[in-house]
């Protein structure tokens, strides 16, 4: 820090171009890749069961899909709140500019939403057919619509369903990768910003998406089960923890590799990137993202995966590590989105950013947008029984 902020660099790092004083992409654009990452990651968890047949993940196979859907329902909220003219948002799909990376969002997001919804509806079809028969009133109508009015649960029909589910889940993996790799490319494709324009950006976004998705599933699964006073399937958490460790090793390696590449290549941007990381981002990057929220979970995960740890201990520490990794990914989004904009294109100075609590794109709207998926998850649970120990599901499965 001192190397940059003493002496000559003091003089060099104080000029911000007048229009760069405004940080145009605010908290909302921090949340948008965070939410889409959770969606993509949670979907991958469900695919591990549905496509790769990892049986120990069965307890969360349905939950992770509904969890992804709850976040998917809110993915556009931060974007709409951010746009200067949200009423023109659909123009991105109606009159897209083919050269723009951003113009693809509407199509990629919609295609993914359709796939996820169809997969959920097909997986739940036999359950919903039975629930329809039992329910009355509004729920009866809802189940009627969600089962496409078909009550056919013959083994032949279910066999076809399973074929389609397998196909959708399989197709969903590359699509989840496209969804989040693409989000990384939105940043990676900006050559004017040296911290963004790296081919590693989509890879880092994709891996951190998987980290946040798996962490989100572990953290909320354990929390909800404790809240419901139901037992947590330790084998399921153990498998998830192993996947989380593996993905996080890759994610953290690439995050550090990106910084190392910059520092080793020492292009004329390095002066600024170095100044940014050891200056305005020192606390949020080195201290928080790397120091506290990467290294500690990394050690915890390694310990849980390499040593035989008791079930209760594993569930407890895995939840802690997952919670910390959810913060790590949020910090990573902050450091990329906000951090990148703190660097003035003058190449000589840094601006500052302090979100207000009540402003349009401030802290309160951010909290609302992050709580909303959990509320939606609660509501979705009323229609889609998510837990294998749920008597609605167990009664029907047998």
């Amino acid at each position: 820090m001192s190397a940059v902020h003493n002496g000559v660099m003091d003089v060099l790092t104080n000029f911000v171009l007048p229009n760069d004083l405004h940080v145009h992409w605010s908290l909302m654009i921090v949340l948008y890749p965070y939410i889409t990452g959770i969606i993509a990651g949670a979907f991958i968890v469900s695919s591990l069961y549905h496509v790769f047949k990892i049986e120990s993940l069965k307890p969360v196979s349905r939950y992770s899909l509904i969890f992804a859907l709850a976040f998917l329902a809110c993915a556009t909220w931060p974007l709409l709140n951010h746009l200067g003219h949200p009423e023109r948002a659909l123009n991105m799909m109606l009159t897209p500019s083919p050269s723009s990376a951003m113009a693809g969002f509407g199509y990629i997001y919609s295609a993914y939403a359709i796939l996820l919804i169809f997969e959920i509806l097909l997986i739940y079809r036999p359950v919903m057919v039975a629930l329809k028969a039992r329910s009355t009133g509004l729920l009866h109508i809802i189940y009627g619509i969600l089962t496409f009015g078909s009550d056919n649960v013959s083994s032949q029909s279910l066999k076809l369903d399973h074929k389609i589910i397998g196909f959708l889940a399989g197709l969903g993996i590359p699509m989840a990768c496209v969804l989040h790799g693409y989000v990384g490319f939105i940043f990676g494709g900006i050559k004017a910003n040296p911290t963004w324009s790296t081919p590693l950006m989509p890879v880092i976004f994709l891996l951190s998406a998987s980290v946040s998705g798996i962490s989100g599933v572990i953290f909320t699964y354990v929390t909800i089960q404790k809240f419901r006073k139901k037992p947590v399937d330790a084998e399921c958490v153990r498998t998830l923890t192993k996947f989380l460790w593996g993905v996080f090793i890759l994610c953290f390696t690439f995050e550090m590799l990106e910084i190392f590449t910059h520092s080793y290549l020492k292009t004329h941007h390095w002066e600024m990137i170095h100044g940014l990381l050891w200056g305005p981002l020192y606390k949020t990057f080195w201290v928080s993202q790397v120091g506290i929220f990467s290294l500690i979970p990394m050690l915890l995960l390694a310990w849980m995966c390499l040593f035989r740890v008791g079930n209760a201990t594993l569930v407890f520490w895995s939840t802690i590590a997952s919670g910390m990794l959810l913060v790590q990914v949020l910090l990573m989004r902050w450091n990329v989105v906000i951090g990148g904009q703190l660097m003035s294109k003058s190449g000589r100075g840094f601006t500052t950013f302090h979100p207000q609590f009540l402003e349009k794109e401030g802290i309160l709207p951010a909290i609302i947008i992050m709580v909303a998926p959990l509320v939606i998850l609660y509501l979705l649970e009323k229609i889609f029984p998510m837990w294998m120990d749920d008597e609605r599901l167990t009664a029907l499965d047998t």
Partner: protein
Amino acid sequence: MESSKFAIDKDRRTFVKNVLKGTIAGSLLLVIPMGGASGSLEVPAQIPGIRGRKYDMFKQRFAFIVNITRCIGCGSCCVADKREYNVPDGYYRTWVERYIKDFDGNVYVDCPNGGLDGYQTPRADIPGKVRDTFFVPKLCNMCKKPSCVQVCPVGATFKTPDGFVLVDKERCVGCGYCIQACPYSVRFLNPVTHTADKCTWCYHRVRKGLLPACVNVCPANARKFGDLNDPESEVTRILASPDVITVLKPELGNMPALYYEGLRREVVYECGP
């Protein structure tokens, strides 16, 4: 007594009548068009070859040249620009930077209020002895390969066939992607219209044969604008001359149509000595 009161009343009446007559006559002068007003009041053409001819968008080529050695940092261009477009405070379509170099090679750059107030006093916070000072006006680079046009998701930012990069504020969704993509930070999100905004090289003036507002007011002829199809224009001559002409950030490949004469290495190599 009685007669003098009558005289005053009569006077008053005459006065009111005269005022009424004058008002009506004056209003009529304003309403009735006076012959030849459209021709005689028009500002004389500043760019030859545009007025009185069919404007073929596909054949026009323009260039903007800033001469660093001439700029005196008066800020007139910034004032003219702010007046022309009613630019909100704190946002800049054009600005003038001040570079100060001391004898130890330290470079100090500032741009208070975008240079709008002019650099009337020397900078007080410089410890060393000042070697020299120069000013760098900045505005839209009107890139031949504009990043902002490439990234705009709805095509609201577009390039005209005559080389101007413009924003259609009726189509802009206000996503700010173009602001991130512009290597020169000439764009901002207008807080009034909530759309992207930037310098247009005064396209509306150019189409009428007039120079951009900032070029028009520059007292030092540091800003030059002209038609590259006109072999006699100043910009054609400068670009054909052996003088060193530079663009900003050429390594990004945006190919700006804004050229700099006498640009110093302190500006080109941002962190250099």
